[in-house]
Structure formats: structure tokens, C-alpha cells
């Protein structure tokens, strides 16, 4: 009898623990777990959106019911180098059947880079009920969860998005002010690889968008995006993230600007610093492809290369 009741108590405790853990993950304001999402897919007031880099992936299989947003045509302006306009963004979300009170979960491939970039755009347009699937598409697949190739059509939604709030977006002059120490209060976080940061290479192998100069923006610290995630692609805990960035001198006491090459991986770090840690962060989407090509701006190049990375 005793052993049975002990077992029952242990089981109960384990159950309670796992439920609390599950709730803790599910209740995060900014992240949802794959476990939680799998149980919520039937909800009409929840819309799952995939924002991936690789074409053909969503079509061959996505989280059932998810809608596809193509970052390079849907989420950018097709005329000027800019994010999608307010009008087009609103139309896009309405087409996806999103209302003002719809819960939105974003996920994507390659560690949620573009999903985080999407989350940044949702934030700019004042859509606040947006969360990221922790671990993204990789984790969902690794856990062997269901994918569907069928596309779902939703009745048009009626969401109204606000005018762009650029307080979380940095532009070239903001960054130049920091580089020239005209704005000594702001910190820069370069999330590219050490080789790019040091100026040994201009960009990773195989990318088409390059810059004339290699190196980094003066005063920027280098914390590559990959340091912010666990092995399974989920974000590290808030405490671990706080310690990671504090080691680089970024403790949230000053405003931060994140950048990378085209602004997508830096959105991932923007998400960690801003959404998880609550720091005051702007993402600089012009990033190195704008800064490294600009005339008259200072560059720190530890490798000593000058023109075209030579």
C-alpha cells in the first residue's frame, strides 16, 4: 500500500511539475513551445504564419493550417529598399484571415531568422498579439510533428494595422551618430560571424549581397546570433541571455542597435534583447550591405583590408 501511494504521489508531483512547466512555456508573452502549439491548432482565433528563407518548403509541408508569407516579396516594398507598406501589410494580414483579436504565432526555417524579422515588422505596425514558435520549423520537424502540404483559405479578416512606429528601427544616420560618438549612449551589437566582424571576409560564402568595405561599425561589440540559442534552436533562458550580453557590456542600461548583413539575423537578436529581456532595442535593417557601401562613414577593420576586402 505504502509503495503504491508513494508512486501515486510521485506521479502526481511529476504531473504537476510538467503541467507548470508546460504552462510556463505556454504563458510566455513572446514565445510558445511546440508542445503548446500542437494542442492549439484547432482554434479559430489563432493563426500560424510561416516565414522561411527556402522556397518550396512551405508548399511541401507546413504546420497544418499555417499561412505562408514570403519575406522577399510579401514583407518588403517591391519598389524601394524598405519594409512592406502599411497598406500592403494590412491587406496581406486580412487575406490571411486575421482580425484584431487573432493570436498570431510565427515560425520559420533556419532558426527562425526570418520569422523573427517578421515579428519585428508586426511590431513596427503595432500588431502586438504576436509570438514566436520557440525552436521554429527545425524543432517542429525534429520532434516528428505533423506537416501538411494542403493550403488553407481563410475568410478575409478585418485587422487594422497602425502607422509604422520607427522607434524600433534604426536608419543609417542613427548608426553613424553612434559610430562618430555623437551619440555615446547607444550601444551597437554586431551579430555576424567573427570573421565578418573582424573584416577578414565581407560576407559568408555564397551570398549575393556584398559591400565594398569589410569590417564593423566603430564601437560595435560582436555577439553572434548563434550564442543566443540552445542546441535545439530554442532561445536560452532569460538569465542566460542576460549574462551572455552582459559579458559583452550590454546590460540594458543603454539603448541598443542590432545589425547584421541584411537585417534578418539581427532581428533574431533584436527579439532576444527586446522581447525576452525587455531592453530598449532598435534593429538596423540596412545593416552591413548599407553601411559597408556608404561613402564617408568610419569603419573599424581589424584585418586591415581596404577595398573589396583586399
Amino acid at each position, binding site marked *: 500500500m505504502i509503495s503504491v501511494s508513494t508512486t501515486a504521489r510521485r506521479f502526481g508531483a511529476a504531473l504537476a511539475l510538467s503541467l507548470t512547466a508546460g504552462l510556463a512555456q505556454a504563458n510566455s508573452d513572446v514565445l510558445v513551445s511546440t508542445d503548446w502549439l500542437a494542442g492549439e491548432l484547432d482554434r479559430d482565433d489563432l493563426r500560424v504564419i510561416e516565414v522561411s528563407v527556402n522556397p518550396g518548403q512551405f*508548399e511541401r509541408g507546413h504546420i497544418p493550417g499555417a499561412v505562408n508569407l514570403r519575406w522577399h516579396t510579401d514583407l518588403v516594398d517591391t519598389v524601394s529598399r524598405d519594409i512592406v507598406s502599411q497598406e500592403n501589410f494590412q491587406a496581406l494580414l486580412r487575406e490571411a484571415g486575421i482580425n484584431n483579436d487573432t493570436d498570431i504565432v510565427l515560425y520559420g526555417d533556419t532558426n527562425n531568422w526570418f520569422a523573427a524579422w517578421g515579428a519585428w515588422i508586426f511590431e513596427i505596425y503595432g500588431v502586438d498579439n504576436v509570438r514566436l514558435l520557440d525552436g521554429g520549423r527545425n524543432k517542429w520537424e525534429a520532434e516528428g510533428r505533423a506537416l501538411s502540404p494542403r*493550403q488553407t483559405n481563410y475568410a478575409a479578416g478585418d485587422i487594422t494595422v497602425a502607422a509604422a512606429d520607427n522607434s524600433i528601427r534604426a536608419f543609417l544616420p542613427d548608426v553613424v551618430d553612434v559610430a562618430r560618438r555623437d551619440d555615446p549612449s547607444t550601444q551597437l551589437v554586431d551579430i555576424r560571424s567573427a570573421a565578418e566582424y573582424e573584416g577578414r571576409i565581407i560576407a559568408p560564402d555564397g551570398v*549575393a549581397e556584398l559591400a565594398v568595405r569589410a569590417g564593423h561599425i566603430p564601437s560595435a561589440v560582436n555577439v553572434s546570433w548563434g550564442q543566443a540559442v540552445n542546441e535545439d534552436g530554442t532561445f536560452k533562458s532569460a538569465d542566460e541571455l542576460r549574462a551572455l550580453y552582459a559579458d559583452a557590456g550590454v546590460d540594458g542600461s543603454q539603448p541598443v542597435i542590432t545589425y547584421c548583413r541584411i537585417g534578418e539575423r539581427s532581428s533574431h537578436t533584436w527579439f532576444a534583447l527586446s522581447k525576452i529581456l525587455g531592453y530598449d532595442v532598435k534593429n538596423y535593417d540596412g545593416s552591413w550591405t548599407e553601411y559597408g557601401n556608404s561613402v564617408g562613414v568610419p569603419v573599424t577593420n581589424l584585418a586591415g583590408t581596404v577595398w573589396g576586402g583586399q
Partner: protein
Amino acid sequence: MEALGLSLLFGGGFGLLLQRSRFCFFCVTRDFIDARDARGLLGILAALAIGTLGYHLVFGLFLPDPGTGRLPPDAHIGPVSWVLALAAFVFGVGMSLSGSCISAHLYRLGEGALASLIALVGVLIGFGVGFATWNSLYLAGIDQAPVLWLPGLIGYGGSATVQLLGLALIAAVLMRWHQPRQTSNQSTMSFAQALLRQRWPTYVGGLLIGALAVMAYLRVAPLGVTAELGSIARTAGDQFGLLPQRLQGLDSFSGCATAVKNAILSQNGAFISALVLAAFASALIAGDFSAQRVSVGKALGQLSGGILMGWGAMTALGCTVGTLLSGIMAAAVSGWVFAVFCLLGLWLSWRIKRRVVRSLA
């Protein structure tokens, strides 16, 4: 990893079907030109018909509305230009010089045809030449060329109907010209013999290849056999500094894309390795395997034909499999253009070659 495993399976299946049903674009066309035997060409039409149906079914899943100006992911729908016509024509000439297209050389390799190895070396060289001429041709004719996709113009229903009617019309013409011949009485053959020892009728292979093409497109990528060869050529050229620094626009087209290698075993590499091995196994069981000696004259034909095919396949973004089969199934106008000009090149060069051989004899 999953895609790699599937590529192995699909490649093996494709190799088996090519070998069993002698699914060789050049041989079946030659059968028709020389002996008015249309059965082989009808087998290719069978593959295209099944593939057309299946592709349209999958397209509806991937891209519910074909009228948005978007193209379905990965499908081999290429720009339609004079460059494509020229490349297809040259490819056809290469086929008749070397006696096979690229996919048939791959399965022949499994049958022990060492000459095919020489042709494949030629193909690699041809790819190198193709990379060298790509930038000029790209600006001269490709970059402004329209990328025409039938469902984008007339919807899925219209496109499937037009394609099937077109294929039926070609089949009717072929059957009219076909000269039936006495076939040997096969009633004494056991099922195992018919399956494992005898060649299958081309239409059997064709129907199954049509189905395989749809499965491959659904799960991995359209059928194609030149991406890996192109990658090898591009990587080698890159190593030795023989390539232009930048191949304009090349990586933005759907087709047998040829990326610089970054993994030893790519999906297409797995696909063609499995193709050759399965053809070898199948030939061994059927007793079709024999290591063949190569004369100098034949070797020269193989090499030069291979070079022409390599150049044509690189410039046309694929060969008789990647651009013709996978293109027509995808209702790409580029697939049809390739088919017409490739046949034209093959027919003209084959007639000239026969005349030269006769006058020498």
C-alpha cells in the same frame, strides 16, 4: 537527410525503369526515323501524359491560384529564347553523334558501356564551355526572355487540357506513320522472364516514369540528371580559376541548377549514383551487362557528342530529362521548345551522319 534518402530511392527507381524499358530518347527517335517504329516515342508520350496529370494535381496543392504571376516552387519552367532553341538543337546533334542522351549514357554505364564514360567526360567539358559562354548569352538573349507557364496563362484546367490534347494529337500522327511489325510469340515466356530478362515495352516504363516524376517533384525536386554533372564541372572550373567570376542570373532560374559543391553527396549526386547502380543491378539480372570495348572512332564520336550535349544542357538549364520531361510535365513552354529543337537537331544530324557513313562505305 530525408531528402537524400528519397533521392537515392527515386534515382534507383529511375535507373531501373530506364534500363528495363530502354527509355532512351535517342534510340526511340532513331527507331522511328529508320524503321517507322513509333512504339518508343509513344512510350515517352505516355510518361508526359501521366506526368502532366500528376504535376497539375500537385500544382493545385503548391499554388492554389496560378494567376498570381508566381511560379510553383522548383518546377523546371525556364526562359523561352533563341538561346534555348539553339542549345536544344546543339543537344540534339550531340545525341546523334554520341548515340545517346545524358540519362541513357548514365544507365548504359550501368550496362558496362565504357564508351558512355567518355561521353560523360565530354559532357563535363561541355558544361565548362557552357559556363564560359553563359554571361554573353545571358545578356544577348536570356535575361529579357519571357518565362511562359501555361497555367499562368489559361489556368490549370485549360493547361492540362491543352497539354493532353497536344500529346494525343502527336500520338495520333505517330500511330498513323507507325509500321507494325511481327513480334515474336511471347506466350511461352514465364512472368519472371518477362519481368527480369526481357525488356519492357517503352510505354510501361513511360507510365511508371510519369508517376515517379510526380512523386519526385512532390517530395524532393523534379527529375533531372545534369545538376550534379554541372556542379562537378563548376566546382572543378572554380578550383582552377577557369570560370567567370560571376555567372549572371544563373542561380535565380529554376532548372537543373548547378551550384558550386559544398557537400560530397548532394541530392542530385545521390540520385544519379543510385541511377547508375540500379541500372547495373538490373542489367546484371537481365544478362544485359557486358563490358564493351571502344574503338578510337567511336571514342571521338562519344567525346564530341558529349561536349555538345554538355554545352546544350548547361545553356538550356537541363537536358532531355530536366528540361524536356520535367519541363513539359510542368506545362512550361520552355520544355516544348526544347523538345522541338532537340528533335530537329537530332533528325538533321542523324540524316547527315548516315549519308556520310554510306558514302564512306
